[in-house]
């Protein structure tokens, strides 16, 4: 019972992350890559992303702090951050990077400083969200449940499919995004 509630909570939480554009479809790809042979894949990748991004953000701060700013270098860092955030599916971070790069091209110091702040802000937000998400997943697994796989599709109807022995299967449609939660296994 409790597991099911946790699973539902996880799905809801994940849904809001998508709706608010913290995460995008690429994150789903990552989740789908996770399997029995690699049960911690998402956790590992996300951790790697955190480490790498923090380093990049530090480098960016330093680079923008120089008396004479090397915009090429700044741009290179931002480009890298854009690449990794888009690979993770951190949409808002990626979007902030795009804006950042535009200002880099213009070599506008004040604007780029503001962009850096924006990117940092988005990064810490998504970091927080992802950590919460991963924690919820861990709790489910620790309680013997399985992590619901979320698929995105486009449906217009809302269904309640009823109970299975191993848990509740239900489909919910929100704002054109279809999230389907299915139990993978029972324990």
């Amino acid at each position: 019972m409790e597991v099911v509630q946790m699973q539902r909570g996880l799905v809801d939480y994940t849904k809001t992350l998508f709706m608010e554009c913290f995460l995008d479809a690429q994150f789903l790809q990552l989740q789908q890559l996770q399997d029995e042979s690699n049960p911690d894949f998402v956790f590992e990748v996300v951790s790697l992303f955190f480490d790498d991004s923090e380093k990049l953000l530090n480098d960016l701060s330093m680079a923008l702090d120089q008396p004479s700013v090397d915009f090429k270098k700044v741009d290179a860092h931002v480009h890298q951050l854009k690449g990794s955030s888009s690979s993770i599916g951190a949409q808002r971070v990626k979007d902030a990077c795009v804006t950042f790069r535009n200002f880099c091209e213009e070599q506008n110091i004040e604007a780029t400083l503001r962009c850096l702040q924006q990117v940092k802000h988005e990064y810490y937000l998504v970091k927080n969200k992802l950590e919460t998400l991963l924690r919820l997943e861990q709790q489910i697994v620790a309680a013997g449940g399985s992590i619901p796989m979320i698929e995105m599709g486009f449906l217009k109807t809302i269904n309640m499919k009823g109970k299975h022995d191993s848990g509740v299967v239900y489909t919910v449609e929100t704002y054109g995004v279809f999230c389907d939660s299915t139990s993978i296994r029972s324990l």
Partner: protein
Amino acid sequence: MFKHVKSRNFLHNFPPFFFLGLEFGSVFREMNSSSGKVYMSTASSSAGWKAGDAAAADQFPAGLRVLVVDDDPTCLMILEKMLRTCLYEVTKCNRAATALSMLRENKNGFDIVISDVHMPDMDGFKLLEHIGLEMDLPVIMMSADDGKHVVMKGVTHGACDYLIKPVRIEALKNIWQHVVRKRKNEWKDFEQSGSVEEGDQQLKHSEDAGYSSSANEGNWKSSKRRKDDEDETDERDDTSTLKKPRVVWSVELHQQFVVAVNQLGIDKAVPKKILELMNVPGLTRENVASHLQKYRLYLRRLSGVSQHPSNLNNTFMSPQDATFGPLSSLNVLDLQTLAATGQLPAQSLATLEAAGLGRPTGKSGLPVPLVDQRNFFSFENPKLRFGEGQQHVNNNKQMNLLHGIPTTMEPKQLAGLHHGAQSMGNMNMQVTSHAPQSSQNNPLLMQMAQPQARGQMLNDSSLGHAPRLLSPMGQPILSNGIAANVLLETGFKKISEPLVIIQFRRTLRC
């Protein structure tokens, strides 16, 4: 050492002579006479491997050996996982230099390479060129950058595809098509053995097919291909048997090739004659033909690339990257191309080249990784040991001369160049004798590794594409080897360069 994961029955009716000891870079390892190549597994394979030991041909494309290069650890990890999920054998690498040495050590160890465009130690396009010239593997570029000009750069550098990050697994599922396509074209080259003219026909034919996703058939094909939903045709079963042992164009081999081409003249160089001149046992006309095709494409691209100053910085190689070849004498290549296209009278080519090479640069800033004097490969720009004064003089002369040069050379201007060239003349002559020695030298790589990096970082953007790579092959593509020889003797202290050359090229390009 190497673990045999599986063998592939790609070579069915392969002619026995291909199995001759082509020792260039140990192309063939443990050839199995009935079934061709044996795959070597890499350290990081197997995890998630599901194919087991089934007959390889049935499993294709499972087991495709992919080398993925990206300095971003997050992307690298994700890509590796995705590729494993596609049942490929993945080796990952976060430095271009490491990737290149892995490829060189294990010449037949990989089927395809996926590389990021922006990497700190080497530009992805440069890596692409190296791989194309040395190992002839299909290379897929990827980047978060989807700007048209970057994608175009991928096309002109010979990438067989371009993926935009974030890469989806669907895009990776079909990368095996590039491997098959390339082999199919090589096979076709082989089958069409014959006359000299055919060499050119083949070139054209395989160029169309082989470069179909990059150069010729529609510039946007490669960008379209990144769409996940593209459905691949299935020419699989027959083409999967068409794999043929790959001749690896090592540095020395390529050098011999270039010497032969230069001797014949770029427009007269046909595979048959090149083969005869090279006189390398076991090398076939088809090998030469396909290499010539690539070489021509490279030359053509060099002459056709615009020289926006900022480009330079991207392609610039630091002196530490001695292995990657210097900015080759772009000017020379351009001149050659121009000559080939009939825009320059043939004899002025040599003059111009000599002049160009001798042209010192007032600017400091070209990296000069050039190396051993006896090794006349790669050099970024001919650094000639001229006296300062002389340099200046040359520079001025040439500046003046080249500035107004129209598409075809005017006699007066040529004369002017001659002037400048003559001062080089002596230099040129002296070193000619060194040419033959270089073939006995160690592979370029080894020597390149001794960085004579007396050069400075290239700041001067006029260098443009110099780093376009020819160099790993070492032999500069110089007509008659003159320029190379010049470099040899003088030891390149200075980076002489192409501010002038660039302008020259610019005007000639119409």
